[in-house]
């Protein structure tokens, strides 16, 4: 079963000069797949990922997520869909610095509003445990090390049990030990929980060990 499907996605930037970043991208991603996206700097990986994540809506072509055409949906519909179905991990952690780690993790679930605050809190603790950070739960996010912050950000991406986790260089700021931890977690999520991971990476080792690699060059998949 395909969790994500693109048909002829193209994108242009008009400023400073007319420039086609993405050229007729068509591919599918299956449920539970661990997909790596590689390619030279400037080849359009991040641009494609932002389109796949529905945050960028200015493109031609069609995007389907979980059997639904999301192209053309309103911003509010897309936001609700992201909240429920997509988790995000970036190179920078984007944690809210004034909040505790636990609270940071809880925010997407509180927004979703499916469970009570108590249930969400215990789920958030579970995710922290999974990433080996239960002792940091009540510290403000700004008081953690870079590797710890990145793991909290991953825990946050997992809180709503999303269908997909989209990552843009998730291990870009991490040392080899932390990279290995993150990779193992991703592997486990895909194999045991059936979650799908799409990760843009510059780490060849990381990419090689994933299920599938998509390489981009000048806005095309090679």
């Amino acid at each position, binding site marked *: 079963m395909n969790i994500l499907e693109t048909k002829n996605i193209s994108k242009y930037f008009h400023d400073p000069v007319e420039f086609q970043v993405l050229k007729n991208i068509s591919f599918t991603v299956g449920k539970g797949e661990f997909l790596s996206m590689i390619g030279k700097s400037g080849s359009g990986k991040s641009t494609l990922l*932002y389109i796949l994540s529905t945050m960028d809506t200015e493109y031609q072509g069609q995007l389907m997520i979980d059997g639904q055409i999301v192209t053309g949906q309103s911003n*509010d519909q897309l936001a609700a869909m992201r*909240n429920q179905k997509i988790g995000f991990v970036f190179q*920078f952690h*984007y944690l*809210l610095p004034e909040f505790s780690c636990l609270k940071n993790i809880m*925010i997407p679930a*509180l*927004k979703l509003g499916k469970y009570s605050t108590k249930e969400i809190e215990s789920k958030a603790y579970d995710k922290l445990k999974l990433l080996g950070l239960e002792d940091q739960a009540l510290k403000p996010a700004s008081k953690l090390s870079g590797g710890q912050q990145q793991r909290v950000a991953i825990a946050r991406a997992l809180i709503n049990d999303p269908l997909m986790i989209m990552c843009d260089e998730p291990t870009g700021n991490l040392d080899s030990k932390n990279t290995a931890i993150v990779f193992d977690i991703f592997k486990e999520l895909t194999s045991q929980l059936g979650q799908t991971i799409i990760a843009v990476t510059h780490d060849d080792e990381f990419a090689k060990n994933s299920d599938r690699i998509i390489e981009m060059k000048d806005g095309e998949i090679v």
Partner: protein
Amino acid sequence: MNINADIASTYLFTNKKLTLVAVMGVLLGMSIYIFMNSMLVGFDRTSSESIFKSTAHIRVYKDDILSKPLHQTEGSTSVIINPKVVPASNTIINPNEVVSLIKKNPDVTIVTPQVSATIFYNVGKTQIAGMAIGVIPSEADMMFNIKSTIVEGDFDKMQGNTNAIAIGSGVAEKLSLKINDNINITSSKGVNRNLKVAAIFKTNNSVIDKSKSYINITTAQQLLQENNTYVTDINVNVRDPEKAAKVAPVLTNLTGYKSEGWKEANESLMAAFRMRKIVITFVSYTILIVAGFGIYNILNMTVSQKINDIAILKAMGFKGHDVIRIFLTQALSIGVMGVVSGMIMAAILVTLLKRVYIGGDIGFFPIDYELSKFIQGAIVGMVITFFAGYLPARKAAQVDPVSIFRK
């Protein structure tokens, strides 16, 4: 607590200094707004109170009529005309009828006839010029609240006693008169009367105190050598003095005599009041708007500081109106804190100023806790806060997360 409100309150409490500065801004704006407007109400009240001590809300009298040319039909030859005041008596014909007619108007509360006479108070060979107001004492007291100004004697003794007179304290002093002393007055018609001082009043307006006196209307008619239907003015009070200008034309139509509201009669004073009102309103709104700019600035700053947070929240599924709510909640919380503390501050200022003695016929500083101004201030304050918060909040809602993540 809702997650939007949760985030808003966290931003507020982790940025205590900014929050405090914004709240202080609203506090100052709010307190000064309420304070100045309460002061304005106080000023207006004392001003009209002092006017109503000698002026009725509406005065009905016979206006001078100008002679009219005979040829008024169109196409007729124009002739040289020279309009003049028609030499007619200024008495109101059949005053009792007119009074009862006016009384039927539902807005009217008190109707009382009056005859004013220019007189001299005589002491030995000196004469003091003055004005005797012929009234029906009980009705005049209801209208002008004369009893509240009585310092000696009893105004009630005037009732039905054509030999009684109530004089101003200045007159009493100059003529060294005490209660029950006799006083001789001469009218402009040369009529002399001996009257007995029943009461002495003091309005703190020295011009009035040194010249005015109240006598019975019949006494005034006698002084002017007129019969007992001679009435120059009919004084009318209405329920709401502010509506006097609306009721006056109704009375004009009803009676056929000229009716004049107190504002019309005191036009230059009213112009000064209006000017005072414009200045105070302008200044107080300006201060509130400056406070609004404070909130606007601080929220704009917060939005810029939190741009990363906004981007990730939007990525994680917060909608535009969620973001607006987060920042609007902050603004409105600042607004509520500022408004409440501003109201307390205004109450303190009013309490302090209320105790300041000014003197003259004003006494203590004319300011009071004007509930309507407190409410009005709170509403205006919250409206300004809303807009000062909404603009940055909308800007935050329009943040494109992709442009932030690319940096």
